Each structure stands twice: as C-alpha cells, then as structure tokens.
C-alpha cells in the first residue's frame, strides 16, 4: 500500500505525505479529510514554550510522550534582555530538567533544526509559524499554538486537515542583485497575505535546481507570510547532496504525481524579478525597489530565520566591504545560528561588518520581534530582511518597517535611505 501511494500519480505532496504518515491504516487522503499524524519532532521556543509548559501542567499529564523528540529552543530573546524574560527562560530550563527533553539555546529554532535534525519525509510541528521552513527539504512541517503543542508533548499525535495545494513554476535565471527573498516577496505581493491560507505550496520548475538549500529555506520560511500550511521543495540532487554532507538519512522522499490537481498554479520567471521591497503595515504591499528608493531610514536589520543564513551574511559583507554605514543610521546584523556566527567570524565577514560600522550580534530572533538588539523608537524607520512589517512589530506602534532582501538592506545602510543593491554588486 505504502509503495502504491508513493507511486500514485494523482496525489500532491501534501496528500501523499499525509496518506503515508497518517495514524493507522495507510489510505488515500484528499483535501478536506481530517486525520491524525504521529509526530517525529516537536519544537517550542521561548515565546510559546512557557505557555505550553503552563498548559501541560494544568492538564495534569504525568509524563511526555518521547523526550528525545521534544525540542525547547531559547532563541527569540537570547540571552535574556530583562528579568521577566529570564524568569520564563528559567521555567523552560526547569521543564527540561524534569522531563529530559532537549534544550537548545542561542540558535534560531528553524535554522538549528535544519542544520541538525530535519530529514525529508518527517512530520514536524512547531509552536512557531515559520516552522514551515523545513518544507525546503521535503518535510511535513507546520506551525501550531501552545496548547496543541502541550497535547503533542502528551500524546505524540495531532489532527490535521488535508490542505489544497498551489503549484509555483519557477523558470529563468537570477539577474544581478536579485535573491531568493525577492522571489518569495514577489509571490506574496501577487497572492496577498492570505493567498496561501490553509494551503500547501509546491515550488517546482527548472529554476529550482539553481536554488541552494539556504535559498529554499528562505522561500519556505517566508511563504508563511501568505498564510500557508506547508511550503515544499521536493527532494532533488541538491537536497540529497546536503543530507550526504551532514550524514542524515531521509525517512521518505516524496514527489507529487504528474497528474496531481492544484487549486491554483503560478508561473514566475525569475529573470523578470527585480529587488523587491514591502511597504510598512502589510507584507503584501510589495513594490519594486525603485518605487521606494530614497526613503530615509534610521536602521537596517539583516537577520532572522528568513534571511540570517551564511549566504545572506556573505552578500551583506560583499556590499558593505570598503563602505561605511551612513552616520546616524544603525546597521544591525544578527546571524540565525551559532554555527553561522562562528563561520562569519572565521571567514572574515565579522571584520568587514565591524569595519563598516555595523553591529554584529549573537544569533537570536532579536530585532525582528522587537524584543532586544535593535528595538525601534517612536516614528523610526527600519529596512529589514526579517519576515514581517506589521504595526509595532519591531517596537513603537508609530515605527515603520520596510521589508527587503539582505542585499537591499545592506545597500540602504550605506546610504541611510532605501537604496538599490545593484549599484554595489
């Protein structure tokens, strides 16, 4: 039966992985069906974990289902910027001691899991919306809240509804100054911020082979901004090479059938995409950089789980090298994991950042969520490679956030206003 499902030509990725992994009988699941999935990995972080711990305690569950599959990650406000956060971090560490679950401190959860634990075909639930990042390597990965996370800790299972799917066909080649972030921003601008709500997005087409794992992770992560449940790159030679290099094996390598049916299909010619910027307030207010160029900024932020990877820091360094951050403008650079931080120091990126006048911080979510290391004051303007530009996201409710690729943010830091990165590459 399992082999039959894997070979079924009529199923999308989501239908196939749910059909194979569903608890009990392996049978074909179609959009709208509700079923229960056994969980391979459950993650909660320091802004959702403490509430899950409280709920777990209130339920009165005596033990967790499998401590080796439960990860608590202290990443959003690391290290603790104040006493209130420190107390919640303490609660997490005490839970780890009591139940023997895994603790990670000082790397962003999604990046840490991608570097160390995620494999194709696994079922991953995270109490964080950007958990869908792990779809970049063909995993079923999606976000849930704290109470459902507590239920997963107790039982190792959770209900899902089989989503409808969207197919995006990527063709063409990147133009200078254009990156994965620009593709996904363009897509969100096209479909709108609820255009993927409840849906599974499959990224396909000949241009996928040109995307690194980091670029795919950026796209899968940022797909959350149109509300998706899953955002999938199927396993291909790039994925296989990555897992060989990190010495981890797939659970299942799942490919959608050629006759699968999609709710919507989109074609994106990467060659026609230019650097994109989302204007403050909504993630789908996406403009070409030329339309907002010259807007004065107080801060540029390069980091977050969306765009804090080594390749992002590399592009920022390339642009900042030999330049100075404009006087009166802050440039905050925050890597997504401890490993990326270390690599950036070892390979001389950190030195370039410091010489340019940028601030190079430890790995954390930090400024993205306005918790520390780059909070915005009243009426301040920031250009940011982070995922969201909502009211008050990075600080004062009167502050404004423009979203862009790390390259556009770095170029803007040099000029003290929104700038086109193509001039620096």
């Amino acid at each position, binding site marked *: 039966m399992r082999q039959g499902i894997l070979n079924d030509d009529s199923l999308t990725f989501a239908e196939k992985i749910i059909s194979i992994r569903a608890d009990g009988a392996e049978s074909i699941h179609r959009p709208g069906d509700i079923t229960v999935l056994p969980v391979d990995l459950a993650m909660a972080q320091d802004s959702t974990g403490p509430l899950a711990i409280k709920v777990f305690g209130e339920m009165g569950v005596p033990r967790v289902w499998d401590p080796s599959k439960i990860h608590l990650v202290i990443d959003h406000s690391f290290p603790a910027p104040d006493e209130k956060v420190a107390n919640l971090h303490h609660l997490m560490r005490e839970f780890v001691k009591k139940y023997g679950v895994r603790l990670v401190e000082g790397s962003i959860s999604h990046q840490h899991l991608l570097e160390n634990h995620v494999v194709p075909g696994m079922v991953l639930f995270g109490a964080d919306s950007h*958990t869908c990042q792990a779809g970049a390597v063909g995993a079923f990965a999606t976000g849930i809240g704290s109470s459902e996370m507590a239920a997963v800790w107790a039982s190792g299972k959770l209900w899902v509804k089989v989503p409808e799917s969207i197919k995006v066909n990527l063709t063409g080649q990147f133009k200078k100054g254009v990156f994965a972030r620009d593709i996904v921003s363009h897509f969100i601008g096209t479909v709108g911020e609820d255009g993927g709500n409840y849906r599974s997005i499959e990224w396909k087409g000949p241009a996928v082979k040109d995307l690194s794992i980091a670029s795919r992770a950026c796209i899968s992560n940022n797909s959350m901004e149109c509300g998706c449940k899953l955002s999938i790159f199927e396993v291909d030679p790039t994925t296989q090479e990555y897992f060989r290099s990190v010495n981890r094996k797939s659970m299942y390598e799942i490919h959608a059938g050629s006759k699968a049916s999609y709710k919507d299909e989109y074609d994106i010619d990467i060659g026609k995409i230019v650097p994109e910027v989302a204007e403050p307030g909504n993630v789908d207010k996406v403009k070409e950089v030329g339309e907002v160029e010259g807007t004065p900024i107080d801060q540029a932020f390069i980091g977050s789980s969306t765009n804090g990877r080594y390749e992002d820091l590399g592009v920022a360094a390339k642009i900042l090298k030999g330049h100075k951050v404009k006087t009166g403008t802050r440039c905050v650079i925050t890597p997504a994991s401890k490993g990326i931080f270390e690599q950036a120091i070892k390979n001389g990126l950190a030195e370039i950042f410091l010489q340019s006048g940028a601030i190079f911080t430890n790995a954390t979510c930090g400024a993205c969520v306005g918790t520390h290391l780059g909070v915005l004051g009243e009426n301040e303007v920031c250009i940011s490679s982070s995922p969201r530009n909502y009211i008050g996201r990075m600080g004062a409710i009167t502050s404004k956030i423009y979203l862009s690729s790390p390259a556009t943010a770095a170029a803007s830091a040099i000029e003290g206003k929104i700038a086109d990165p193509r001039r620096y590459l």
Partner: protein
Amino acid sequence: MTTPSILKGRIWVWPDDVNTDIIIPFRFKARTNDPVEMAKYAMYGFDPEFYKKVKAGDLFVAGKNFGGGSSREQAPVAIKYSNVAAVIAESFARIFYRNCFAIGLPALEVPGISRQVKQFDEIEVNLQDWSVRTRNGIVHPALKVPEFLRGLMREGGLVEFYKHHHSFPWETLETKAITR
C-alpha cells in the same frame, strides 16, 4: 466550564488582515505567562487603551484573515481574558483559528458578516446552530466545522477537555480517508 450556547453582546468591528502583532505585540506577550496580564495588551497595535474600554460579554466582528502572522496563542488568550465572548470573522488565519478551539474561545467564520454590522451593534451568536443573528434580525449561518472541534470549544478548550476525559478529542476520530 461549559460555554453557554447563546451569546448576546455589543460588537467591536475590525478590518481585514488584523494580525497577531496588532492583537498583542511580542515584547509584552513574551514577558508574562499570566493570561490576565496578557489581556492588558489586547488590540494594543490599534489602541493601547483597548483593555480599559472593552466590557465583559463584548464580541468581535472582523473582516477576512483575522489573526494572521505568528502562532502566538497569547493572541486569542488576550482576547478571551478581555472577557470577549466570541470572535466572528469573514475568515481566520489557520493557526489562530486552531488556537481559538484549543483555548475554548468561540470562533465563527461568517462570509459577508462585516458588511452587515456597525461598531457597537448588538448581535446574538448561537453556538448550538452555529450562526449569528444581526441587528436586522437576519440569521447568518457560520461555515461548518467538524463536531469534534465544536465539542472541544463547548468544553472550554484542551485543558478542560483533557482534565475531564484524559484524552484529546481527535483520538477518537474516524478519518474520512478513502481506501483504495
């Protein structure tokens, strides 16, 4: 605690795409585990004084995609502990919607509802029929949800459900899958 089946109250009308950063900013929600404290920051992005203005039994009526963005359960918790009795929207973002059932905050999807009401109208939510009656007397059926979720909501969410049944509501689900 079981949720009553008829909820009457005045409504706060919200626009499309109200995200969780508006409902409760990160820097407040990530600094407390106390739902009463969370409620002080409900709807802060629109009005930092909202918590002083809301009354027990008030209802929310919103446009499409209510609760988009982060997975933060503190968003529906802040609404629930503001003593808002139910949230009605044209549509909900996926995680927010799940979280409402998980914490026992009634959430009803009623397409077209935001054009039928104005700020502080009195409306009636019927959790038995899963419908909303607006001021003009018209009854608007909400989109159907599976019975196990309505049961979960009625029993007050996952904590109450588990304390009562020592199991989770989906553990008894029969999947609708088609076997070939």
